[in-house]
């Protein structure tokens, strides 16, 4: 016991753990603040339960050697694709998207959130098998396909927000795998064309979101309402905020989807710029520590896995924070650790578990 007590803190990266715990605690506090006293007052209790489940899942993943998971990643990935394929048949429709599986007890599972883990594992495995300075074309196509297929499946549900969270994987994999210059050029050109072309594929409400992003005052009561009210919530928080559970914008319901997509606006309203700055610093340290752990990983597969995971969390967080204040269009991307949502929280903690697992095995002699 004494030996374990001695080595555990050294091997388990406490910084990542505590930063993630702090962010989760802030999340629970904000879920309480945005739902207490409303018909959804039970959500805070559920979020605590999800956090506990997430911690258990992280512990399990920490215990398993990530190298085994990397080896089995094609199988895991295949299973994930199968679930995503079958979802339109067995899925439960919630707010227009068949993204959910019933798991009993009134809980639903969102497979697309968990798909991120198997996608990350598969990408790390592919990158490990091509360790030259610059990626081979074959590898690039394999990476693109590994992400493209689930993106298309999730978009069909349709859940654009979650599908978009897969894209950072591709950029991370290509950037750290090493992409030849001409490929960057192709990527940029095709990316631009895809963005332009996708305008014609977007649904009306999605087009509205982009229009109102460009001009939030477009319609005070219409499409621009969410963006405008979120900005009022954030701005009215001032320097020190209105106090916990005292945000008028969120408590009186002016702030839309305040316990999920716009939970950061509620935080900004109640805790002010001071709270925003502290929160962003916590996130910054979490990302920095994740990157530091990637440097120390004992092998390319582990390093790539950590990078894929931490930058996926980072990208989601920064996009959500930017979206809340209206500098990016509303896309339905949640704030990891903080937004209410069981699948998202548990999946994020699974990612923390994997990062801790790589860090735990960073010394070759273990």
């Amino acid at each position: 016991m004494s030996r374990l007590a001695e080595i555990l803190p050294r091997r388990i990266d406490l910084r990542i753990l505590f930063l993630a715990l702090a962010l989760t605690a802030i999340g629970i506090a904000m879920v309480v603040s945005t739902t207490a006293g409303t018909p959804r007052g039970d959500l805070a209790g559920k979020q605590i339960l999800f956090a506990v489940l997430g911690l258990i899942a992280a512990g399990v993943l920490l215990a398993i050697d990530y190298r085994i998971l990397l080896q089995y990643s094609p199988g895991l990935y295949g299973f994930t694709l199968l679930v995503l394929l079958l979802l339109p048949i067995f899925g439960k429709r919630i707010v227009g998207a068949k993204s959910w599986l019933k798991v009993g007890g009134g809980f639903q599972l969102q497979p697309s959130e968990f798909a991120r883990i198997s996608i990350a594992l598969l990408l790390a495995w592919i990158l490990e098998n091509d360790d030259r300075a610059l990626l081979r074309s074959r590898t690039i196509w394999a990476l693109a396909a590994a992400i493209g297929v689930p993106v298309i499946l999730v978009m069909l549900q349709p859940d654009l927000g979650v599908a978009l969270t897969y894209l950072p994987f591709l950029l991370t994999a290509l950037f750290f795998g090493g992409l030849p210059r001409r490929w960057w050029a192709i990527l940029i050109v095709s990316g631009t064309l895809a963005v332009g072309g996708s305008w014609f594929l977007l649904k009306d409400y999605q087009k509205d979101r982009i229009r109102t992003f460009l001009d939030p005052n477009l319609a005070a009561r219409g499409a621009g309402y969410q963006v405008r009210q979120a900005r009022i919530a954030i701005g009215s928080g001032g320097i020190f905020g209105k106090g916990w559970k005292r945000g008028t914008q969120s408590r009186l319901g002016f702030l839309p989807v305040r316990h999920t997509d716009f939970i950061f606006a509620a935080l900004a309203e109640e805790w002010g710029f001071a709270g925003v700055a502290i929160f962003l610093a916590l996130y910054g340290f979490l990302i920095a520590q994740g990157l530091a752990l990637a440097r120390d990983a004992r092998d390319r597969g582990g390093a790539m896995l950590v990078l894929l995971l931490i930058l996926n969390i980072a990208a989601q967080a920064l996009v959500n924070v930017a979206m809340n204040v209206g500098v990016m269009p509303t896309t339905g991307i949640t704030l990891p650790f903080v937004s209410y949502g069981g699948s998202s929280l548990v999946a994020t903690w699974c990612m923390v578990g994997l990062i801790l697992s790589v860090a735990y095995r960073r010394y070759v002699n273990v």
Partner: protein
Amino acid sequence: MPASAREDRRPVLSRIDVIARGTWVLIGVLAGVYWVHQVLRGEAYERQAENNRLRRVPVTAPRGFILDRNGNVLAENEPSFTLLLYRRETKDLDASLRFVAELFNRSFDDLKRRVERDRSYYDFVPVVLQENLTISEVGAVQARSLEHPELVVQKTERRVYTQGAAAAHLLGHLGEATAEQVAARAKARPLDTNPPRPGEAIGQQGVESMYQELLAGVSGSRTYVIDSFGREVGESGHESPLPGNTLRLTIDLSLQKIAEDYFADKVGSVVALDPKTGEILALLSAPAYDPNFFTKRVSRSEWEDIVEDPDHPLNNRVLQNVYSPGSVWKPYMAYAILTHGIDPTERVFCQGGATFYGRFFRCHGRHGSVDLTTALQVSCDTYFYTMGKRLGIDAIAESAGLFGFGRPTGIDLAYEKSGIVPSPAWSLAARKHPWYIGETISVAIGQGPVLVTALQIARGMSGIANADGALPTPHLFHIGENVRTGERFVYRPESKESIPYPPGAHETIVEGLWRVVNMPGGTAYASRVPGLDLCGKTGSVQVVGQKEAKKGHLLPEKLRDHGWFASFAPKDDPKIVVVVFVEHGEHGATVAAPLAARLAEYWVAKSRGGKPELLAALAARPVGHARARAD
């Protein structure tokens, strides 16, 4: 791991450094954006958040009561219940409206149209579906409140005119302030701190409109905390309204009621006033309408019924309709005669008319030799034709102007007509042709282009009743009373106008008017009341030509003459001026004078301290028509 042995990790490490720095830069930029919104623009957003959160609901002040001069209530308020529909909370509009339609036995489409009409307002502004709910209807709505949370019963106050139609035209009524009225008032009084709001009930006619500010009080407000659905979740403050002032009018309800009873089956007007002060004691226009009708929402067909009524019940005939004065014009002619060097004892011989400018002007009788007082007593047209010709139109117009004809009297009611005092200058300006000399002869007996209101006749009669010739400004405002402080304020419009009487002139005219009622042969002798000393002048106005007129009351009603009676009493120290006008009443003496006599009798008895039983008996005694007699 054989792969890792060959791997060069340096490029990966340097890329990690790039990303690490890039992440902090991005976080810094985002923090900067939040800084701009929260710190630099924080106050502006805070105001917007407060506007979101707080809803200031105006609370209309209790409107001041309106009383008659003795304190009898003419207008008061009573609690009433209004059914509101909150559209934001409405899940199934058709289901809600079906429920309401069934409960109130109303047309579903009607309700639907009302909701559609208000669609342009914000959806948190409730739609008024039904007013004046009964207690059982309130119960029925509240019993289903779980099913229909969108239907809310609001307690409000409703204006009640306790006397019904009795004082309709002088009181006026309330109606929703239109956008134009709001704009007009804002323009007229830019600094008004309590302007009417669109849709708020404000006075639309009569004293309700004239004394809107005095009666309305000052609105208060309640500030509610609302959620994004517009539901009130708390109250954050309130400002109590200041109730409106009580308005005591110069009207005497008993006089008003005697007049109203008499006019139940007649068309016309009555105005009674105190000749010294101008206080209006009774003001009636018939047919009237029930002002309570306007307190509820009026349907289109109900509105059309009242607007298209051929008798125009909405018109205030006392001051909005102009008529030929006929023979009630003669006292003012008498003044012109007395002030233009004509000897009142000079006699004119009447043989049923006379020829002037080649045309025969008829008199209604053969009066023989008459002087001025006799001419007034018997209403001899020939005398006044003759004197009118001698005076000329300018002298007539000048005298009429002194008595206030041709311009508003200044009464505290809106839309008063000026009437016409014709003259050659008027003819050129208004008719674009010169004055016909023969018209002067017609004007001399109150016919021709001269037009007056009943109120102008009454004011002019005050100038005859008062020995000093004072011409008061008629008014309804008696006393205003602040209901909180008990402070009273009296407003009496000053009138500096008076009629200059040469020695003996006043007595001569009054003598003539006294004889009209109190001497055998006087045109209103049938209406004499012992001890009253009523002085007056009858008049009838031709609606049709002479030939048909001979058939008298055999004519269809619409073609019969209008009847006038203008009077005051008692002869010395007059207390009351009464003018009665009966459309198609045929003879002033038969239909107008009896009512005037009764009103004067009542008021003089009251001002002499008559016993209440006596006054009640006097008020209760029916007023009959007098025996027909030509005037």
